């Protein structure tokens, strides 16, 4: 791997190596630019993925060296429901390894539908929300979805339905095999007239791009994939970036500030070298790309205060960190007579698409959701959660645990969440992270509309499970999100510099050579399956940035 000296000015520093950072690094390096990728986490099993394994205990309690996710004890964060509430310790975490969240995610890879880009024009706005059109249309982003799907490696059904975004090219790999979850939901769909499909997943099902297909091991969501079938940034993108000889991945490098000069241009980044006593190092760069996820991205901008940007970088309008959409869910579970063995294979067994579109008139709320059927639980996880309707220990616990084992199916739903200005990521004035920097503070209460949406999907889940033949069904309580893996919206795109953080090419309105691309760019949340759109946005951003940088002026 090429190594750069920090004092050497590189063309690009990319902060983050996940769904967006991996795309940016690859595209920029392939175009011949010098790139340093700053990754806060460690290598994981990058390049020796066979060392990932199915061991649940060590995966749940990794040593510092093996960590794949951030640790809320180190990457400390706080949470409150609203600005007048006292904060409590938060448990928000995110992918923290080369490849970011794509190393361990469930890998659902749905495109947004065309109407998820211009909801304000199509359906109008709503009081108390920041619903707005994206500055990019589905037609403009479609070629980048296709490029992302074929370069990254996505499997899915090739079905034509208005419930799936129109595609100029089919998915490169056939869908994951039918599981019992899929078979049962199909049964319900026939009775209830629902559209059910295999999940669209960044998991290859056959040899593709030099990697082998999924072996259905079942150590899926939350685990590193030992056969490289999950198309993470670490196996599908970053090795190509490194092979160009133009790209260095610098691990355990925690960026604490994006530096600017007197003219307000980014000059590089200052980071803690974790492996060397947190020594502070400055990496010089012509241009900075920030792809640190929907929560760390706004935090880093807010941490990057200077006399020119006293409220944080790219934040002259105060929008950075606002409109956080952290991911709403809720559903129901049911028990069936026969073993489903959902612990085998990929985590998501099937998707119900019928409630993706808006139907305000009939449902009484704005938005929709994609329902998924799954029952995957690893043994410890199952035992710790315990059987339904039984004591938490003793003979009754044991009896129910054994009886219910492998017979449970859960509807897990991915539901729209409206952008609300007061839902924010900012800096906690009192709490510091393990490196002495102000901790991330999440403030979030969903709009009342979204509570109706969650209740709708909980009820639908129960209906579907009953129609599928469940002998017993229990529903989740409506539970507002508290942060988590799908954070979006905190540096929203827009044409108007007064109401958005980045323009339609992800360039910060305030800083000519700073590009911000990841979930934070989202204007509205979609149906809470963000990764494919993050990747497509990054391909589009990179395409523009490469063209611009080749002219020597990234501001065009």
């Amino acid at each position, binding site marked *: 791997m090429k190594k750069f000296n920090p004092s050497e000015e590189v063309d690009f520093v990319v902060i983050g190596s996940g769904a967006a950072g991996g795309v940016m690094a690859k595209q920029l390096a392939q175009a011949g630019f010098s790139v340093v990728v700053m990754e806060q986490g460690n290598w994981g099993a990058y390049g020796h993925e066979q060392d990932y394994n*199915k*061991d*649940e*205990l060590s995966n749940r*309690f990794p040593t510092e060296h093996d960590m794949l996710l951030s640790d809320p004890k180190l990457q400390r964060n706080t949470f409150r429901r609203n600005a007048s509430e006292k904060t409590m310790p938060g448990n928000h975490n995110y992918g923290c390894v080369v490849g970011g969240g794509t190393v361990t995610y469930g890998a659902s890879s749905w495109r947004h539908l065309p109407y998820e880009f211009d909801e304000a024009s199509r359906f109008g706005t709503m009081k108390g929300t920041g619903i707005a059109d994206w500055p990019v249309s589905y037609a403009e982003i479609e070629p980048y979805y296709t490029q992302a799907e074929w370069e990254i490696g996505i499997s899915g*059904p090739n079905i034509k339905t208005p419930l799936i975004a129109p595609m100029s090219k089919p998915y490169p790999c056939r*869908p994951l*095999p*039918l*599981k*019992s979850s*899929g*078979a*049962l939901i*199909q*049964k319900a769909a026939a009775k209830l007239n629902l559209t059910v499909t*295999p999940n669209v997943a960044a998991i290859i099902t056959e040899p593709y791009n030099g990697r082998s297909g999924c*072996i*259905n*091991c*079942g150590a899926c969501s939350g685990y590193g994939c030992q056969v490289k079938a999950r198309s993470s940034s670490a196996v599908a993108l970053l090795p190509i970036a490194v092979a160009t000889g133009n790209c260095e991945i610098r691990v355990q490098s925690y960026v604490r500030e994006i530096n600017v000069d007197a003219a307000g241009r980014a000059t590089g980044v200052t980071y803690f070298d974790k492996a060397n006593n947190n020594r502070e190092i400055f990496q010089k760069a012509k241009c900075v790309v920030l792809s640190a996820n929907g929560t760390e991205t706004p935090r880093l901008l807010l941490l990057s205060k200077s006399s020119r940007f006293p409220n944080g970088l790219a934040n002259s309008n105060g929008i950075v960190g606002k409109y956080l959409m952290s991911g709403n869910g809720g559903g129901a579970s049911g028990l*069936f007579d*026969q*073993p*489903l*063995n*959902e*612990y*085998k*294979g990929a985590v998501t067994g099937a998707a119900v698409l019928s409630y993706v579109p808006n139907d305000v008139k009939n449902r009484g709320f704005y938005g929709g959701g994609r329902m998924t059927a799954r029952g995957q639980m690893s*043994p*410890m996880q*199952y*035992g*710790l959660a315990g059987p339904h309707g039984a004591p*938490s*220990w*003793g*003979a009754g*616990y*044991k*009896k129910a*645990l*054994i009886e219910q*084992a*492998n017979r449970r199916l859960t509807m897990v739903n991915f539901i729209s969440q409206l952008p609300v200005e007061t839902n924010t990521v900012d800096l906690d004035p009192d709490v510091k992270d393990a490196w002495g920097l102000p901790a991330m503070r999440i403030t979030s209460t969903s709009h009342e509309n979204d509570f109706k949406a969650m209740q709708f999907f909980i009820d639908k889940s129960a209906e579907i499970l009953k129609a599928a033949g469940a002998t017993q069904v229990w529903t989740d309580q409506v539970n507002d999100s508290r942060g988590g893996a799908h954070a979006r919206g905190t540096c929203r795109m827009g044409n108007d510099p007064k109401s958005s953080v980045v323009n339609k090419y992800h360039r910060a309105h305030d800083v000519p050579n700073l590009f911000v691309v990841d979930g934070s760019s989202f204007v509205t949340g979609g149906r809470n399956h963000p990764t494919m759109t993050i990747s497509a946005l990054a391909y589009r951003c990179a395409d523009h940035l490469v063209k611009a940088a080749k002219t020597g002026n990234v501001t065009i």
Partner: protein
Amino acid sequence: MSDSRRNFLFKTVGASSAAWLTANWPAEVAAAEKAQAMGNFTYFSREQAGEVDAMAAQIYPTTDTPGAREAQVIYFIDLALVTFAQDKQDIYAKGLAELSTHTGGRPLGTLSPEQQIQALTAIEKTPFFRTVRDHTIMGMFAAPQHGGNFKKIGWSQIGYDDSLNFRAPFGAYDKAEGTW
């Protein structure tokens, strides 16, 4: 194997249960005895191990199928407290002291099963009990290399196959249905 080990393993199971276990799972019991005969507790004193073992045996009891004792959960916990769960040592130390106030100072395992359940119910909301509960369950279902789940007793009870890879069909309903 030594008699003291046998005493430890079967102290509260009772002679008839022990015979029944040996008759039904001779290989498991023989292997358990052998493994324990070679092993030493790393963290617990013998007395502490007896208390925690008795707790685990109530949390995941031996019924018509083996429980925490046969799965050797105590060895999992002993190892846990010097490895990934070192930060829980204090909880155990304080918790064991509190438990003894509910047993009249007698070893938990010497009480009748009903008395044991009563004593544990009295502390079931405490961080100590919850920790032992979680550790017991982890010891049942974590991979055997971590000290518990002896001979995959836990996994076999919940129908978990730890094979490296699988081919469809996976379960009963997709088997009946075929493919997408």
